[in-house]
C-alpha cells in the first residue's frame, strides 16, 4: 500500500457518485510560501453524500480547517476543485450553506438578534422571516430571552450557540460545522449532537469537523480522516471500527473465572462485577456460547468486535508516525 494511502475505503468515490453528492472536493491542495514551503493540505478528496452526517477527523494541523476554508472560499486553494450541491463552490451556491467556524466570534457590541438579522439579510430573508426564524432558533439553541443582550456579555458557550443559530438561519441544505461542541458543557454538547441528528432527519447534509471522537462516533454515518494534510482513511464508521474476524461476547456469571476452555481463545478481557466482556475468533463463537451455557453463564450480547474510534485513531497515527520515521 502506498504511503499515506487511505487504509480502508468501503465508501469508494465511484460508489459515492451513484448517490447525489452534497459536497465534492477533488485534489484540494494548499501550499504556503512558494516552492519548498509548507504544505497544509495535500491533494485531499472528499465526497459527502446528501442527507448524511460526514465526519472530518484529524489531529491538530491535519488540514481539516484549511480544507473547509478552501471549500467555503475563505482561503484560495493552490489546486483542486470544489463543488457544493452539484455546483462550483462559489458565492451563489453558498447561499444554501450554513457554516459554524471553530470558536465563533461576533462583533461584541451587537446582540444575538442583530447578528441573526445580519445573516438573515445576507441570506436574502425578509424582516418577517428573520424575526420568526430568529426567535425559533434562539429558543432552539437555548438562548430564549437573551436575544437583546450584548454579545460582549456572552460566555464562550453562548457565543457557540449564537454561531449555531446563525448557521441555520436560512434553513441551509448543507451545514458545515467546525468543532461545534467546542466551549460547550456536557449538556450543550448533547444538545449539539441532537441538533445534528435532527438535521440529518430533516434531510440536511452535515459536514462535521471535530476532535471529539465520541461526538463523531455518535452522529456520523461516514468519516474521512486527515493526517499531515492527507487523507489517511475514509469510510463508514462500522467498516472502519469493526475488527475483522473477531466477535465480542458479554456474559454474566457468578464464577470468579471463565471456564478454562474459553481462556485459551479469548482476548481483550474486561471485568466489571459479575459481567465479563471479551473477544473470541468468529470461528470459535458457537463453541464458546455452548461452554458458557453449560457452565451456567448468562450471555448478554454477542456482537462483532468493534474498537473505539479513539483506539482506531491512535493506531492510525502510530502507523503514520512509523512510516514517516
Amino acid at each position, binding site marked *: 500500500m502506498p504511503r499515506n494511502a487511505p487504509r480502508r475505503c468501503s465508501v469508494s468515490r465511484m460508489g459515492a457518485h451513484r448517490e447525489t453528492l452534497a459536497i465534492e472536493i477533488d485534489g484540494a491542495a494548499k501550499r504556503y510560501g512558494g516552492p519548498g514551503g509548507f504544505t497544509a493540505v495535500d491533494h485531499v478528496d472528499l465526497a459527502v453524500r446528501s442527507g448524511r452526517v460526514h465526519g472530518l477527523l484529524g489531529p491538530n494541523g491535519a488540514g481539516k480547517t484549511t480544507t473547509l*476554508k478552501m471549500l467555503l472560499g475563505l*482561503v484560495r486553494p493552490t489546486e483542486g476543485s470544489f463543488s457544493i450541491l452539484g455546483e462550483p463552490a462559489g458565492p451563489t451556491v*453558498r*447561499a444554501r450553506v450554513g*457554516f459554524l467556524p471553530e470558536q465563533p466570534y461576533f*462583533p461584541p457590541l451587537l446582540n444575538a438578534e442583530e447578528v441573526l438579522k445580519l445573516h438573515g439579510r*445576507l441570506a436574502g430573508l425578509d424582516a418577517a422571516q428573520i424575526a420568526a426564524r430568529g426567535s425559533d432558533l434562539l429558543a432552539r439553541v437555548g438562548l430564549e430571552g437573551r436575544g437583546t443582550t450584548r454579545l460582549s456579555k456572552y460566555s464562550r458557550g453562548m457565543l457557540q450557540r449564537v454561531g449555531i443559530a446563525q*448557521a441555520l438561519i436560512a434553513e441551509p441544505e448543507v451545514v458545515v460545522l467546525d468543532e461545534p461542541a467546542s466551549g460547550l458543557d456536557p449538556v450543550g454538547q448533547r444538545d449539539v449532537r441532537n441538533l445534528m441528528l435532527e438535521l440529518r432527519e430533516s434531510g440536511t447534509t452535515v459536514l462535521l469537523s471535530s476532535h471529539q471522537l465520541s461526538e463523531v462516533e455518535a452522529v456520523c454515518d461516514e468519516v474521512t480522516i486527515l493526517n499531515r494534510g492527507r487523507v489517511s482513511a475514509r469510510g463508514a464508521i462500522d467498516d472502519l471500527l469493526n475488527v475483522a474476524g473477531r466477535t465480542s461476547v458479554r456474559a454474566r456469571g457468578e464464577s470468579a473465572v471463565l471456564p478454562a476452555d474459553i481462556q485459551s481463545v479469548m482476548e481483550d478481557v474486561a471485568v466489571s462485577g459479575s459481567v465479563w466482556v471479551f473477544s473470541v475468533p468468529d470461528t470459535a463463537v458457537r463453541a464458546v456460547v455452548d461452554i458458557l451455557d453449560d457452565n451456567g453463564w448468562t450471555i448478554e450480547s454477542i456482537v462483532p468486535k468493534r474498537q473505539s474510534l479513539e483506539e482506531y485513531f491512535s493506531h492510525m497515527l502510530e502507523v503514520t508516525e512509523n512510516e514517516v520515521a
Partner: protein
Amino acid sequence: MGRILAIAAAVVSDAIRRRIVWVVVLFALILVAVIPMLPSYGQGVIEAVYREVALALVYVAAIVVALVLAANRIPSEVERRTVYTVLVRDVRRWEYTTGTWVGIALTLAAASLVFGVIVFATGWLVYGEPMWTLWQGVLAIWMEAAVVAAFCVAVSAVASPVIVGVSALAFLFLTHVRADLLGGPSNPLWSFYPSLDVFNIIAPVAHGTGVSLAYIATMAVTFAGWAGVLLVLAALGFARRDV
C-alpha cells in the same frame, strides 16, 4: 445592494456604540462651546473667527473618528474571525469592503450631523445669526473624512492597523501639499496631482459667503472619484487575501 446595506447596517450598529467615537465628538463639542470665550475682535470678525475655529475642530474630530472606525475594522474582523460567517454566505469580497465603508461613512455622517447641529446652534445663540454656510463646511469635512475612511479600508484590506494609521496620516499630508510642491495651477502637473484640497472650503465659509452649488457638485464628483478608486483597490486587495 441589499447585502452591502446589510453589512453597512451592522457596521453602523457596532460603530455608534463605540464609546471612543462619542468621546471624540463630545470633546470637540466642548471646545466649540468655549470658542465664544476667545478674546473679542471687531464686530463681523468674531463671527468669522468662530466659524473658522469651529470648522477646524470639526475637521480634526471627523478625521480622528474616521481613523478610529476604519483603520482597524477589517484587520480586527479577520483576526477575530467575525468575517468568516459573513464571507461564507452569498457575499462577494467587494460587497464586504464596500458595505464596511458605507457603514463607516454613514456613522461619520451621523457624527457630522451632530457636529453641524451644535456648531450651527451655538453660532446662532451666541451671535444671533443663523450661519447657514457652516453646513457647507460640515458637508465638505464629511466628504474628506469619508475619503480618508475609504483609504483606510483599502490599506487595511491587506495591511495591519499600524500601517493603516501611518499611511493614512501620510495620505492626508501628501494630498494637502499640492500648492507647496507645485506652486500653482500653471504647473502642468497640477491637474494630475492627487489632492483633497477641493474639500478645504473653510476660508470661503468662514470669511466669505460660502461656495456655489457648482462647486459643491465638483466636490461631490471628486468625492465619488476618490471613493470609487479606493474601494476598487480595497476590493482587489481583499479578493486575493486568505482569511
